[in-house]
């Protein structure tokens, strides 16, 4: 077992544990903080995969923006900061069964696929994945159209979120 494998296993187990805590913790702020831990684990996984740009973007976007947004939303949607009542709906066992079945099914499907045991070719020395990625994102032969559509989607989401969450009664008349 190499060092990389040990690191991967540790990160994977920490991430999965954090993920389990996200879906089972009663306290929602804790759930959001566990989500941060899980997302950080995913970022480390990207580093192991040599996808440095994705790792940093993961930290910036998910931990810096999305997780903070979640924490804000949790705090804004509770009159007092405690949790009342059950956190699971009454069909939670059905969800659990379905989740286990999904994992089993995916595992079974993947076992039958011949590319499953593939090992990576060694990472090319001096390969600049970031400029390659940048070129791919903006070149017409690459992915400029999906990239532009994604930015339009973001603007639409921004406008939509402001519109939906805007409260005309005590909105920013400001005077």
């Amino acid at each position, binding site marked *: 077992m190499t060092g990389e494998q040990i690191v991967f296993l540790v990160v994977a187990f920490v991430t999965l544990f954090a993920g389990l805590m996200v*879906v089972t913790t009663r306290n929602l702020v804790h759930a959001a903080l566990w989500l941060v831990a*899980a997302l950080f684990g995913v970022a480390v996984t*990207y580093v192991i995969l040599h996808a440095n740009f994705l790792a940093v973007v993961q930290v910036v976007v998910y931990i810096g923006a999305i997780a903070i947004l979640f924490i804000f939303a949790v705090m804004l949607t509770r009159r007092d900061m405690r949790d009342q009542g059950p956190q699971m709906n009454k069909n939670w066992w059905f*969800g659990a069964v379905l989740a286990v079945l999904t994992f089993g099914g995916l595992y079974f499907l993947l076992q039958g696929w011949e590319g499953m*045991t593939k090992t*990576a070719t060694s990472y090319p020395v001096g390969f600049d994945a970031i400029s390659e990625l940048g070129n791919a994102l903006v070149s017409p032969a690459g992915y400029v159209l999906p990239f532009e559509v994604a930015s339009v989607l973001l603007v639409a989401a921004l406008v939509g*979120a402001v519109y939906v*969450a805007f409260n005309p009664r005590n909105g920013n008349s400001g005077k």
Partner: protein
Amino acid sequence: MVPLSWYLIFAAALFSIGMFGVLSRRNAVAILLGIELMLNSVNINLAAFWRYGDVHLMAGQVFAIIVFAVAAAEVAVGLALVISVYRSRRTVVADEIDMMKW
């Protein structure tokens, strides 16, 4: 080296955990948390396929970046909806948001 299968099984497990969260939590914000886990597991797969395929083909990373954008948009709109519902109904429990039932 880590074999590809480890990444895929890891991602599958994370996906299942996220799905459990989506299916079983009552709080709408917690359901969104589960969706985030599912999106992340997909991203792990995309990055792993990029690394284990030809690293000069950037499709995996590009797709992962688009997923980031979609996740950000989804969270922004989703949480705005949750806050809006909370304002009018004083609840974020998904079972109790049932105005469209009748």
